[in-house]
């Protein structure tokens, strides 16, 4: 029996095959029966009868056959995929330059997105390591009249805790600092004074020992809980520390517990400076005062309760308290803020903007990749046509081209992963302190998957159009018409133009945004902050414990310390202050003599207050504008003197000389302070926030325990650190010094965040412009190549170089203009989105927009430059010959 070659079992319908088999069988049987002597009719009947139920047999056999087919075709597909993949690698490696460039472009685009997304993920999107973090909230006190928000008072907290219906636990705490004075090196650490219920809210078990009991609130229990970090670093992880006493703020406290490793106590300002120890909230003169707003309230919602519901409940509660306690609670309401929204805050917004910029770059890069794939497809039209003629189905061709673009994209994806890895390492080293949890930044699996999916998607989408258009080539037409003149040529050309126009539109959006942010940064740098940013060193210290219980004792300390500091070599001026510029404020209402005389029923003017000692103004570089600085005479309780800043002078007495005028911080009865001098403004709340009115009191009038020493140096302020510390220890050997910073560092840390995202977005803008230039270059090059004949003719009839360049530039210009026009709306929308990040420049700034447009036009013309030059160098003879 003969056999014919096997033409793939793959695409035949098994049912039909089996029918045919059965028919053949029957025929052969009939033949046999006829040969044995039966007449044909009878033979047929007999054969059919003997065969049995044909339909059943057919069905069963078909069932088996179909299952086999499915399995085989699966293997076949896998095999062809592999084949296509190998072929793709081969063809791609034949054009190594463009392939590598494309992979690089993709890697940059996808890698940037992956890296930024990883940061966003680790820092902001990952939930906190606390049980059910979505239930955690802060409850702030908000003044519904002037919108001010801040901590609550303790009696208010107690009422919130006892009268709410939507929270399962609530606690209050106050952040502060403690001196740990045992051991060789006294240190000062951030610590929280908490109610026992804070630990209920956080629902965290201590690693060792226990947490505070409710009865220990407001008692004088001398207990302390340490953080894991503090325990290991300062006490060597000694397990027997529980039950022992350590010296805290000059007195003994028993260590009753150690918190687990990695535990972080949430604060309303993100996770900046972690608390290293916890002590019970203590009874003091302010805690029963409903008017003393110093306590942060943490709360945990009941399971399933929405924030909005809780807010409504608390609003009603707040209204009731307002009625009951009008002196303290007028216009005050509790404000429920979910923890995660606090953490996200400004820094999260900034990172999201950077991510958006990276996404725009990726889109632009995809334009380049698409153009590359289109041109490849076009130049291989002949090859495709031949393959189609040889019998490769259209589907096969499309599939093979798609495989090519997918291989390319996967290459880009791998490159992206490497790039992301590397750039995350780089990012970690210069990430600003405004971004919390930086230790947790890593190339996370989600981002990786995201990168790979993105690259696959890019390959498929941007390979599809070229693949489909290439598969539609007409063999005869393309073979006759030569490379690139087939039916797909024109379509490909238009598509590339569309891509370039799109790139320019996106480029305008990014360029405009980048320019606005750069201007913001520059104008912030130029802003006079009001103090000397170069020569000032600050050191913080806290006079705690029994030794400094009396205010006279504290004053004595500073009176001894400041002259010592002044006499150090390298110190030009020495002083002390209760708070530094840019680092937040302390404020209170002020009533001027005019206001009290008028008996006007207003609230006081909110004014910052600082207590200063020594030559603070000179040390900080704050200029004296009128009158004099504070002197010991101003301690006179009958006639205390005060210095105000320029903003206060304008605010209190707009058209009058402030010297000699008086004001008071309360009005019942007024405690008059007389203005003896006016100094320059500093920005209390941050480098971007306007200076507030401020009053400077002598230390003796406000002898706080925590002060910051300020030293103006003649040389490098950091040289003074050691001598200053020694001077402090000379006055009190148990007095630790902490928070050592130069004002330059303070300024940097405030500006650092802005610098970070401005730099990144600027970088992305440059990248985008480069990619757009490459896109234009590609399109114009193709244009020149296409029109070689025509251009050759022009040269032959005498067109000069300028004319030719003009032609080329005109095309590029039109493309750029179209893109810019398209992108204008997007650019405007983008600036509105980032308007909160701008400083010193308004979002809709026509000069900047014009600048962006101009930049893009330059990019367009630059991209067209080389092809234009090439056009001028065309030899007419060659051009006419080319086809």
């Amino acid at each position, binding site marked *: *029996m003969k*056999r014919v070659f096997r033409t793939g079992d793959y695409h035949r319908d098994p049912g039909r095959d089996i029918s*045919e088999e*059965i028919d*053949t069988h029957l*025929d052969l049987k009939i033949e046999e029966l006829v040969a044995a002597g039966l007449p044909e009719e009878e033979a047929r009947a007999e054969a059919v009868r003997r065969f049995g139920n044909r339909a059943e047999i057919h069905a069963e*056999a078909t069932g088996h056959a179909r299952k*086999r087919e499915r399995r085989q075709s699966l293997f076949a597909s896998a095999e062809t995929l592999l084949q296509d993949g190998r072929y793709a690698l081969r063809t791609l490696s034949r054009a190594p330059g463009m392939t590598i460039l494309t992979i690089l472009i993709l890697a940059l685009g996808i890698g940037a997105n992956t890296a930024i997304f990883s940061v966003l993920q680790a820092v902001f999107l990952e939930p906190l390591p606390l049980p059910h973090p979505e239930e955690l909230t802060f409850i702030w006190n908000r003044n519904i009249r002037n919108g001010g928000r801040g901590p609550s008072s303790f009696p208010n907290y107690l009422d919130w805790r006892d009268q709410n219906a939507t929270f399962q636990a609530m606690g209050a705490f106050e952040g502060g600092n403690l001196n740990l004075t045992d051991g060789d090196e006294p240190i000062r650490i951030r610590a929280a004074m908490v109610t026992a219920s804070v630990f209920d809210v956080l629902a965290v078990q201590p690693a060792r020992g226990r947490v505070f009991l409710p009865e220990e609130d407001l008692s004088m229990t001398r207990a302390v809980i340490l953080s894991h970090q503090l325990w290991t670093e300062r006490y060597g992880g000694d397990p027997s520390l529980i039950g022992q006493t350590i010296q805290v703020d000059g007195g003994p406290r028993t260590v009753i517990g150690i918190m687990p490793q990695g535990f972080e106590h949430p604060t309303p300002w993100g996770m900046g400076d972690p608390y290293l120890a916890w002590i019970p909230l203590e009874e003091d003169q302010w805690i029963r005062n409903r008017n003393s707003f110093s306590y942060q309230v943490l709360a945990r919602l009941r399971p399933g309760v929405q924030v909005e519901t809780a807010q409504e409940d608390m609003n009603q509660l707040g209204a009731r308290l307002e009625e009951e306690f009008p002196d303290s609670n007028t216009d005050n309401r509790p404000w429920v803020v979910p923890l995660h929204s606090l953490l996200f805050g400004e820094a999260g917004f900034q990172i999201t903007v950077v991510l958006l910029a990276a996404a725009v770059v990726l889109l632009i890069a995809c334009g380049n990749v698409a153009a590359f794939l289109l041109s490849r497809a076009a130049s291989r039209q002949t090859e495709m046509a031949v393959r189609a003629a040889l019998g490769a189905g259209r589907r096969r061709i499309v599939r093979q081209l798609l495989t090519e673009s997918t291989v390319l994209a996967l290459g880009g994806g791998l490159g992206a992963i490497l790039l992301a890895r590397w750039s995350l390492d780089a990012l970690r080293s210069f990430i600003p302190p405004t971004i919390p949890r930086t230790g947790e930044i890593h190339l996370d699996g989600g981002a990786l998957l995201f990168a790979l999916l993105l690259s696959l998607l890019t390959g498929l989408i941007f390979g599809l159009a070229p693949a489909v258009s290439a598969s539609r080539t007409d063999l005869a037409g393309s073979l006759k018409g030569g490379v690139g003149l087939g039916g797909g040529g024109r379509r490909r050309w238009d598509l590339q133009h569309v891509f370039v126009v799109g790139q320019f539109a996106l480029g305008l959006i990014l360029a405009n945004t980048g320019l606005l942010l750069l201007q913001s940064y520059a104008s912030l740098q130029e802003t006079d902050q009001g103090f000397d940013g170069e020569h000032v060193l600050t050191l913080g210290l806290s006079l705690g414990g029994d030794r400094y219980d009396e205010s006279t004792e504290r004053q004595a300390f500073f009176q001894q310390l400041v002259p010592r500091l002044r006499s150090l070599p390298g110190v030009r001026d020495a002083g002390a202050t209760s708070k530094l510029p840019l680092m937040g404020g302390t404020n209170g209402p002020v009533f001027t003599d005019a206001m009290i005389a008028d008996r006007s029923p207003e609230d006081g003017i909110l004014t910052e207050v600082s207590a200063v000692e020594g030559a603070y103004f000179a040390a900080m570089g704050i200029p004296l504008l009128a009158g004099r600085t504070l002197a010991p005479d101003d301690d006179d309780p009958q006639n205390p003197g005060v210095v105000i800043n320029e903003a206060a002078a304008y605010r209190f007495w707009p058209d009058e000389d402030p010297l000699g005028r008086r004001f008071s911080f309360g009005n019942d009865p007024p405690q008059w302070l007389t203005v003896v001098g006016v100094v320059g403004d500093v920005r209390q709340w941050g480098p971007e926030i306007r200076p507030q009115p401020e009053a400077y009191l002598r230390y003796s009038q406000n002898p706080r325990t925590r002060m910051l020493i300020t030293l103006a140096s003649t040389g490098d302020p950091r040289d003074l650190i050691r001598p200053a510390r020694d001077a402090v220890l000379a006055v009190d050997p148990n007095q630790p010094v902490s928070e050592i910073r130069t004002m330059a560092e303070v300024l940097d840390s405030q500006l650092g965040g802005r610098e970070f995202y401005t730099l990144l977005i600027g970088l992305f803008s440059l990248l985008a412009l480069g990619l757009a230039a490459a896109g234009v270059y590609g399109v114009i090059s193709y244009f020149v190549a296409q029109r070689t004949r025509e251009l050759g003719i022009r040269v032959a009839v005498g067109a000069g170089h300028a004319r030719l360049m003009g032609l080329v530039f005109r095309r590029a210009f039109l493309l750029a203009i179209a893109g810019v026009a398209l992108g204008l709306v997007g650019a405007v929308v983008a600036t509105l989105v980032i308007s909160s990040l701008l400083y010193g420049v308004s979002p809709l700034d026509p000069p900047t927009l014009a600048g962006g447009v101009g930049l893009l036009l330059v990019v367009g013309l630059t991209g067209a430059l080389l092809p234009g030059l090439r056009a001028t160098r065309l030899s007419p003879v060659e051009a006419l010959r080319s086809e």
Partner: protein
Amino acid sequence: MAGNLFTGTLDLLILRTLRREPVHGYGIARWIRDRTQGVLEVEQGALYPALHRLNRKGWIRGDWGETETGRRARFYSLTEKGRQALQHETARWDEHAQAVYAVLGGVEK
């Protein structure tokens, strides 16, 4: 059909039939009938499902070809896997048969 064949036995017979050369479906039925001198006549109802089942298992392969009389028919042949299966199944069947005989051997002929 005379005799009650288990499905497994039919598979075995088909494999044996194909040992030397490819045969089409009708030819397989004929060969078995001839070899057993009419004792075993394979029901077509069982044959084609069996053939396609063996095909699915990968023990036999079906290719289209031409008979001597010029008809188009599907010819089946043993695959390597099928060859091994034939050996294995034959041994098993032998064993099984010996066991049955051991029991029946007690009956007088």
